[in-house]
């Protein structure tokens, strides 16, 4: 296919002769038998040809192998191998994307699957410390203090955890993404915080009580526990 060439210009140029297979220029194109129609007019061929060949016009010419007028390749072997590589790559790319999308229907995590605005779940998280004597002490929106030999040491959940609305304790928030992801991140954040409060020697582990309400559903409660700071791990499932 030759683009941007007016029919009149095309007809009077040698380009038409090349397409008809009657031009001597076509004999210069390697791999093409002169005198037969269907010579390949590839982008790699045109720049080598003198401008005068095209009637002096500025032409944009590109390969369109779907078009029978320029369908026979002089570099069949190389381009065919490249074409198969491209086809394989495209197939693999599309297959991977489809796999990730379909997979998300069977797993709680919707990452890489393009589930836009997947849900509208509101939650309120409350942080509780479980002391060595078994008592549970609710923190003040994630803040608490412990008495040590050197004085009072204050801890705050927000000093450890930021973003994804994981830092908002004690008030209702709409979860970003899916609520399952929020739970996963809360669990990891609990363990993270539990590992980073060395001065607090009285807390055995941390609990996060999450009240949540999925769209069109009733309020439910879920309790997450950090790994035990004494070494043992306790887990709580959804109530």
């Amino acid at each position: 296919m030759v683009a941007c060439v007016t029919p009149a210009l095309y007809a009077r140029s040698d380009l038409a002769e090349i397409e008809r297979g009657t031009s001597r220029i076509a004999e210069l194109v390697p791999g093409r038998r002169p005198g037969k129609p269907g010579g390949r007019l590839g982008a790699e061929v045109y720049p080598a040809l003198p401008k005068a060949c095209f009637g002096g016009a500025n032409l944009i010419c590109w390969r369109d192998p779907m078009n029978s007028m320029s369908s026979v390749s002089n570099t069949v072997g190389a381009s065919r191998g490249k074409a198969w590589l491209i086809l394989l790559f495209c197939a693999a790319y599309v297959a991977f994307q489809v796999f990730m999308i379909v997979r998300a229907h069977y797993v709680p995590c919707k990452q890489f699957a393009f589930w836009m605005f997947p849900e509208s779940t509101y939650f309120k998280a409350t942080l509780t410390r479980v002391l060595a004597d078994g008592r549970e002490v609710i923190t003040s929106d994630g803040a608490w203090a412990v008495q040590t030999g050197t004085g009072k040491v204050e801890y705050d959940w927000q000093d450890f955890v930021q973003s994804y609305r994981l830092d908002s304790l004690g008030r209702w928030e709409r979860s970003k993404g899916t609520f399952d992801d929020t739970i996963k991140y809360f669990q990891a954040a609990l363990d993270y915080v539990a590992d980073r409060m060395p001065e607090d020697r009285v807390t055995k582990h941390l609990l996060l009580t999450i009240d949540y309400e999925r769209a069109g559903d009733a309020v439910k409660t879920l309790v997450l526990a950090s790994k035990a700071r004494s070494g043992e791990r306790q887990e709580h499932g959804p109530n």
Partner: protein
Amino acid sequence: MGPIKRLTAWANKEGPVLGLALFRIVVGLMALRYLVGFARDYAGWGFYGNYFFLPYTGSIPQPSEAQYVALLIAGAITGAMLIIGYHTRVAAMATFLMVTYHFSLNQIWHRHNRYFLVLCLFVLCLAPSGRALSFDARRLKLRPIGPLWTCFLIKVQMTLIYLASAVSKTIDSAWRSGDVLGGRGLEMTWARWAPGFLLDWISPETAVQFITAQAVASEYLVAIFLWFRKTRRLAIWWGILFHGYIEAQYSVITFSYLTLATCFVFADLKCGQKTWIYSSRSVFSVEVAKIIGWLDWLFQIRLEAYSGTKQRFVDRDGTPYGGMMGWIMLGSNLPIFFPVCYPLSWLRFITNWGYCRFSIISAPAEPGRSCKPKWIVWWAILYLAFLTPVSITGQFQNLTDAMRFWDLPWFFVLMCLVAGTYRHALMREVPARAPRREEEVTPTLEPTPAAH
């Protein structure tokens, strides 16, 4: 031609890469936006490694604070290089690697729009996007032609995103019932903004159900209609409204912009297929023609002048439009006016309104001068200089709704500069028409919806 030959021919197919180049510019801008957003987080909260984070896998090496800052800066520079098209392939690969590495550092940073940005950058690494609208194209005198298979990947990716999103909503009972959008405050929005008579007629609950159905239907329709020439412009127009509303209401960071950028790839752009014929005697018309040169970001409109008094728009199929319809058709082919002018352009199907029956003689009148490429470089430097203090100073930590759009004027200026810089070269590639007399067309000839 057998199916195997057709497949290999498809893989080798080459064509104009103007759409890819425009896509590259938007992706580069979004990469900048992505990195600047994290620079803002860094300035506000400090190094992410000092807080809770969750890598996808322990095998991903975590950077030190200095390395992290260097990553953001280097990414911004390569993103700017990608926009202006300087060593485009290297810039695309470097930006892809840096954005992808950054994205992989923390699961909590996962957003669909960021993943889409990574995929866009990945495809750009393989695409001949530097063959147009780039410093490389000027420097190496490249023609805006290249392999088209990467365009196919971008289109398929976009369609998969729409379909994945639409299917996930369709099978979710909470979505179908409208509870999900209701939970996102749409009921309150309707109750607050809808006029009283409309509120009496359509309750907030009904409105949310209607909007839910519309949202799901839009995703299906845009996914499909973008592929067909006859419905493409309608799909693009609807997509602009759809994503414009989502961006204004919810802020999806880069997603709306990337989605609309894929329209450049879908649009199958070829330069100078339409003509604006203006009066060379009218100062107003001459000035408008100059402005068209800056606003024609898709390089669709050739400028021609004649000695008469009226102006005329000649569509791709040769159909001429004059009067108000000529202006409407001109507007519907300039991206900035497209959302308003496109629906108005449908009026021409009703009564042949604006259809010209008289021929005129015109001659090419492309402006001889063009904007210099260094202006784009200066813009990039100013933009980065603007980003740094504006994004990182304290009062900009929490961007309000209005301030989320503070960089849009910069995008606008960039696109105008790109149009002004490369217009001359691209239009020169199109064979110049000799002065000609338009053939008198029969009034019974009806333009088709896909005519332009």
